[in-house]
């Protein structure tokens, strides 16, 4: 049987169908069950639909003020998003007055008990007006439903529509209360559809060229987008619209005018690419810029589409010349190291093959908190025979895996990181990154560097006190054979 029941899941046997061990001979539709509700009490790593809408999709926009229609908690937490930096540059050449506006401010309606009893519409209305006053520079106002507003039934769309006319700027309501759907994935879905229905096609870009691309599902985590942007620029392509890293409200409104859409995060944003294709006939291709090989391959495909093959080759050549020698050094060190990729969405399949092929690592387990079937199909293709694929993992499963399999490194989120450390296994944050960006040629080098610095951090060889350490009698002090990162040529 390709499914595996962890020992710790003895009491929740339904977990068995979420844990799949890859066998190359299995039929294609044999993979972990996914996109279903989490077993209550199982310490899952999932977030809610609200987190998916605000935290992932819209929180990366640089000129929008966000008003969370909630008691104070959801608003407070919506402030702690991923590292999505934004520049002040606007599509019309002007500058937005507040840098990283999206990281600096989050607003809410601070619902109280009386609002829950009598409804929160009045408060929402006033709050949106206040938001327009407090941040006149903001191009638009987005407002979010939460569990509370979803349950008391406030008609947020009505208020948004009314105020769009009254305030003279777009006010958009996102109806993705926390309890919607099995995971944050539902929030991505709702946000994509809301943006498409409400915004896409409502404006025209200041100018167009035959080389306009739309970059979809790229959120500029730790500056990822800026790396990709430099490649496209050098290839003579222009990013017309970004969805939604370092993007603007207006870019979203005219994203239907791109000549080709590139879909980076295929879990959270394929929805909108599909909708645009259907209505506006803009084709899209799925792209993969993690690792040097995928990056080169995808730049070539894009170059070919626009007749810019030579330019693509130049970008690839330039970057490879810069990163290849250093990557070689890390490859030597990372060779054979056993690693888990426990990402939120698609990084598990983006990174599995590159870590093995380009760095010689051994990916023995991958997981996703909110992936759907299409994602697991790709994940299954890209891991090797015997690798474990876990849907919606919980912390006890991770513990069991660590104690039995002893990986050298785990790529996961902050919630798993510190527990894995307690069990003696270094963990890199793959959601927000450690010292990113991790995308593209330079980014893959950063990832390799981070993996190296974690695995070879001297502390992991000193976890326990030893009364009689090996070789202590012969050598006093430091032995020369002791390998620390300081002694490795960093190739700089």
């Amino acid at each position, binding site marked *: 049987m390709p499914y595996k029941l962890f020992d710790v899941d003895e009491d929740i046997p339904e977990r068995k169908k979420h844990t799949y061990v890859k066998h190359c001979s299995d039929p294609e539709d044999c993979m972990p069950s996914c996109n279903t509700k989490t077993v209550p009490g*199982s310490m899952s790593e999932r977030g809610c639909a609200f987190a998916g809408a605000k935290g992932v999709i819209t929180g990366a926009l640089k000129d929008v003020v966000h008003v969370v229609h909630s008691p104070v908690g959801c608003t407070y937490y919506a402030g702690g998003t991923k590292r999505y930096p934004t520049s002040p540059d606007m599509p019309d050449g002007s500058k937005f007055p507040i840098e990283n506006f999206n990281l600096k401010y989050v607003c809410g309606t601070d619902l109280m008990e009386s609002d829950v009893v009598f409804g929160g519409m009045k408060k929402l209305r006033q709050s949106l007006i206040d938001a327009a006053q407090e941040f006149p520079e903001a191009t638009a106002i987005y407002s979010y439903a939460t569990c509370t507003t979803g349950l008391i039934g406030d008609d947020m769309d009505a208020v948004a529509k009314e105020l769009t006319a009254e305030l003279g700027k777009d006010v958009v309501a996102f109806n993705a209360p926390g309890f919607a759907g099995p995971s944050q994935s539902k929030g991505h879905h709702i946000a994509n559809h809301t943006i498409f229905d409400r915004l896409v096609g409502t404006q025209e870009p200041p100018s167009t060229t035959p080389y306009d691309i739309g970059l979809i599902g790229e959120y500029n985590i730790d500056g990822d987008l800026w790396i990709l942007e430099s490649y496209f620029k050098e290839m003579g392509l222009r990013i017309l619209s970004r969805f939604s890293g370092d993007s603007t409200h207006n870019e979203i409104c005219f994203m239907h005018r791109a000549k080709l859409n590139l879909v980076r995060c295929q879990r959270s944003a394929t929805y909108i690419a599909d909708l645009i294709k259907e209505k506006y006939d803009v084709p899209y291709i799925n792209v993969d810029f993690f690792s040097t090989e995928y990056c080169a391959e995808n730049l070539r495909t894009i170059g070919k589409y626009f007749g810019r093959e030579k330019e693509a080759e130049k970008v690839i050549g330039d970057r490879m010349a810069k990163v290849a020698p250093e990557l070689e050094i890390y490859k030597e060190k990372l060779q054979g190291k056993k690693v888990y990729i426990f990402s939120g969405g698609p990084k598990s399949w983006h990174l599995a093959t590159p870590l093995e092929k380009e760095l010689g690592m051994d990916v023995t387990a991958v997981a996703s908190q909110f992936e759907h079937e299409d994602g697991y199909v790709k994940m299954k293709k890209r891991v090797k025979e015997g690798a474990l694929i876990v849907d919606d993992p919980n912390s006890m499963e991770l513990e069991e895996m660590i104690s039995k399999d002893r990986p050298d490194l785990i790529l996961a989120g902050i919630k798993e990181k510190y527990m894995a450390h307690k069990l003696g296994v270094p963990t890199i944050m793959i959601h927000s990154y450690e010292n990113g960006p991790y995308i593209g040629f330079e980014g893959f080098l950063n990832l390799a560097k981070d993996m190296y610095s974690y695995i070879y951090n001297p502390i992991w060889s000193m976890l326990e006190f030893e009364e009689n350490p090996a070789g202590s009698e012969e050598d006093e002090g430091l032995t020369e054979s002791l390998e620390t990162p300081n002694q490795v040529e960093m190739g700089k």
Partner: protein
Amino acid sequence: MSGINVIEKERTLIVNPLKTCQPLGAMYAVMGVHHGLPMVHGSQGCSTFVRYNFARHFREPAEIAVSSLHEDAAVFGGRKNINAGIKNLALRFKPDLIGAITTCSSEIIGDDVFGFVDTTKKELKEMSQEVKGLDKIEVIPIPTPSFVGNHFTGYDIGVKSLVDALAEPGEPTEKVNLIPGMVNPGDIREIKHILALLGIEGLLLTDTSDPFDSPLRPSVTPTEPYFPKGGTSVDEIRDSANSQGTIALCKYAGSGANSLEKKYDVPAIIESPPIGLQNTDQFLRNLKKLTDCEIPDSILDERGMLVDLIADNAARYLFDRKVAIYGDPDMTTGMARFVGELGMEPTMVCTGANSKTFAPDMEKISKETGCDIDVLFEQDMRSFEVYVKENPVDLMIGPSDGRLLAQNLGIPLIRVGFPVYDRIGYHRHPIVGYNGAARLMELITNSVLEKYYEPSHWKLQQ
């Protein structure tokens, strides 16, 4: 004549809140129980966001379960979810205690969590014939919707729920109950250190020090499941009914103390946190009042070292400097009093949450320091920002949420409170007690030296 000027929020909108939700506080209280697990009855975000916040502040794991409410529960109620959640936790983790914490969603759909927990406990009892020990697991309902109160009222309800459910009268003990408030492991350890010097046995309700600052020792760290070391045991909480008294070290978290006094005649003292010299003095006097202990030389020497530090440096480097403080009401009143002791001026104090004692406390501090204080009451970080831009200060004191503002304005920020995620080690060192005050004094003075003296380097010549 000095006084306070209370400034309340004029807009309806809240921008960058200076408070968060009740469930977070309740989870914090439950995390301080030995082998205690919080089980949030709500949507998945309700546990995920709090785990994220604890993890980034403490850089420690925070195991918090959730009942995963979805659309069906919104329609039909969440009974199945909480029942299954508690049973799964009980079977898989075998904790000593589960805190069943409600949220906005479970409260609005009208779930009777007390009833559900009772039913589940009965089921656990039946199941214990097959799986030993399930009937021994305490399951405590904690009602904490986020549309009421804030994180520290949630903490208060958490502590009170634990005490109300567990405290049992028995043989009187010499112990003193302490409700530390939402403080850091370093603070709790400092409180324990003070008790040790006075020879008093303390009973912490609850003790988050070890759970949130736990050693990395793979050979002894219990795996499968991972529980951090430490925390107050269920038996200790039971015994809290028999102590000599209870001191709540924050004015917002006295409900548990009051409850013990009412039910079991355990005298309650509810005071400001022992931040700074005079507040720590008051803490010692309170302990003496309850236990009639001697105040030994060892602790008076620690006090003397703090006095020495202040005497040596405060007048030269700190006098007259203006400070703006933001955060929880008790932390900010404590800090305001302390900066006053240093000869600085707490010209503005901003708090996000409602607290009855806040304004009177600030009034008192204003008289003590002779400084007019603008009090931003039930305000947010945006109001703080607007105020500071118009009324410049020399220093800011508060959690990391003010870091970008401090950077923009070039004002040194002394990181105090929750959360601090852009510096390391702040949760490990105390701000309470004489030692905590000494450390704060050093942080404040060194920031002043770096910002205001180093640019003209000759001023640092002795």
